[in-house]
């Protein structure tokens, strides 16, 4: 399983990669949305965990773009603040539904969340 972690906080990004690697994931980290899109095209990840509020492109915009060329990729928004709720509302109004995880989350819970295959309805 290939995972890209997108976060402008290097400590969070680095520790997550370390944790996920330890759980057997093939994890990579990038610091912003543009880099995430670039690397997603390159390595075709199964999962993307992205911060929402970031300088430049925010997490929702990033997720929306990646969804277009990687429809099967599981994208999880990882947010630490209420402001992101407004952004999610807007994305929902535009027809995009994303999984959301709230910071902080215990690593064991995160791992559990990642483990089951994504429940997606195929039309």
């Amino acid at each position: 399983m290939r995972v890209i972690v997108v976060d402008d906080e290097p400590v969070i990004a680095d520790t997550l990669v370390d944790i996920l690697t330890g759980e057997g994931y093939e994890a990579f980290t990038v610091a912003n949305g543009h880099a995430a899109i670039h690397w997603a095209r390159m390595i075709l990840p199964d999962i993307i965990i992205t911060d929402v509020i970031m300088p430049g492109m925010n997490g929702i915009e990033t997720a929306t773009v990646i969804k277009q060329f990687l429809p099967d990729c599981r994208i999880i928004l990882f947010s630490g603040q209420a402001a992101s709720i407004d952004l999610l509302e807007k994305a929902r109004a535009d027809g995009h539904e994303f999984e959301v995880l709230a910071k902080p989350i215990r690593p064991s819970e995160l791992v559990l969340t990642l483990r089951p295959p994504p429940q997606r309805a195929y039309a």
Partner: protein
Amino acid sequence: MIGSLEGEVQVSNTRDRVASSVPPTNWPDSSSTGHSVQFYEDDSFLLDGLGRFIGAALGAGDAAIVIATKAHRDALVQRLKECGMDPSLGLMLGRFILLDAAETLSKFMVDGWPDESRFTQLIGDLLTATATQGKKRRVVAFGEMVALLWQQGNPEASIRLEQLWNDLVRMHSFHLYCAYPINCFSQEGDDELVQRVCAEHSHVLPAESYTSLVNEEERLRAVAFLQQKAQALVTEIQDRKKAQSDLRLREAELVDFLENAVIGMHWVSADGTILWANRAELDMLGYSRDEYIGHHISEFHADKAVIEDILQRLGRHEELHGYESRMLRKDGSTRYVRIHSNVLVHNGRFVHTRCFTVDITEHKQAEEVRARLAAIVQCSDDAIVSKDLNGIVTSWNAGAERIFGYKSEEIVGKSITMIIPPELQDQEPLILAKIRRNERIEHFETVRLTKAGQRIDVSLTVSPVKDERGAIIGVAKIARDISEHKKMEQALRTTEKLASVGRLAASVAHEINNPLEAVTNLLFLAKRDISDRSKVEQRLDQANQELDRVTHIATQTLGFYRETSSASTVDLAKTLEGVLGLYARKISSRGINVIKEYGRKTEAKVLAGEIRQVLANLIANSIDAMPNGGSLRLRVSNSRSRNNGNQPGVRVIIADTGSGIRPESMKKIFEPFFTTKKDTGTGLGLWITRAIIEKHGGSIRVHSKPGISQGGTVFSIFLPEAGCDFDKTATPQTEPAERQDNQLWLVPKTEK
């Protein structure tokens, strides 16, 4: 025979003195030729003389022709009979001829003028026939046709007839005797006619009052008496003339007065017909005299019932005072009038009304406007109040009663200070002074007291009331109850406060959740890699740093509110010096030139820790704004508040020559979490700074000009010397904003 006639002479009053039983001696001799004229006052006098004259002629065997009125003819015959004569014989013989004056006259008068040939023929033939009746005799004649003409108002014809008689007298040699009642000549100016009549006669016999006098002495006395009487009459005539002239003048003045009076007047007959109207009345209604006078008054009234009532009342001889009605103008418009009228009654008979019509249209219209305005004022929700220049209430509308609880009668005549709270009594003289300077006060928000003692927020608009000449005579005041509005504002502010707390919470969440996520991960990894000591240590160090971040944020946001240290008197210049020391290395490394201007008496009672935080924050901002050096000017001075009653205090000014604040950012700098320093700023510094200053009852303002070379920012803080009661909710102060061309002063929003 003659003597028996004398008893019948009727003389009266003044004539008694000269009356005498002796017969007059001046009667013409009937045997002579001539033309005598007798003036007489009384018929009996004429008939006495005539009787003697005719009687003598007949007695002497002469012929007599009498042309007289029937009354005179009958009386003459009676006289002659009483004298023992029988005139019937003479009549029978044609020696005595009696003719009717009017009838005879009609035989020769043509178009009011005696026709000479007809007259000569008629009378001449008569004379000839009479004179030759039987044998030739002398003839005497008496004629009254001239008197008749005179009495008919044709004196010229009368004189002409006298002349025609004269011609006959010359032709036929007889004596003609004619007579005029003296009252034919009673008019002034008749003297000339009397002279002309006399000129046509050979003998003039005055009226009996003179003629009847006996001797020369009495006649002279009578002349003197008559002269005196004539003089008295002349005088009386002059007086009368004067009086008449005065009367005419007076009448003309009265007519002019009525005609040109400014009030409409008219007379109306009992049946309602207009008999007379003056110019003012015609002008008021726009009719000409003919279009108005002669018409029925009700044609000109708009309300028929009203004019009928007026006429009925006047018909009962009532007097009308100020009866209001509407009259119709010729142009179709109506005029409001007030009618005063009564009736001229003569011998119980209604002669005409005396109506005075006053046009009150303008007055009525003004009254309507006034009434409309009064109604607007009365039903206004706002309190509309007028007072004089001493602040005494002169009017008080329903809105004022509702808002302040005082009834109009409770407060009119009393001072407006009744509704001003004790601590705001100073306002009234200031307001009145402004009004006296002809200035308006608009939407002045203040507090007033109701009758129940409740304080209410009001917005006042006060303006001067002027008379026609522009002199200020009073004050009009509109007060709007803004208590509800204030409450809503307060609620809104609370909502805003809650929202800002919400925003704070959201930001705090972001600032805290990220480090917490990091710490959680680091602890997970430390536990996972517990056997690798160096790795664990590295993870725990990182976790410590993340926790420091959390602590820092918590201190900055929440710590401020937990400050409990008590206020103390602090020298702000020294505090500033201390803060400056913390940044000494940074200042020197950037090459920033610090200019210090510390005045004396710079102590104020403050919460030292918080003020240190404020100064540190502002200095740090200034240093950040000058990465490539510049000047930092620090001024601490004893000062006074610009907006709070000259309250003494200390002003700290921190000015830099840095990059300045962009105008679009200016609005937000005191908002929480607004920052232009992406990596290093929390966006809480100025927000907290403002909160602290407000808590101290001070004020803060900023002036900034963005730009690389000429930019800069000036923060000015004022702190009251005495501090304030920090336990109570502080009343923050805002200083009035000043705006200059290229300067932008921003005054933070304050909360009351």
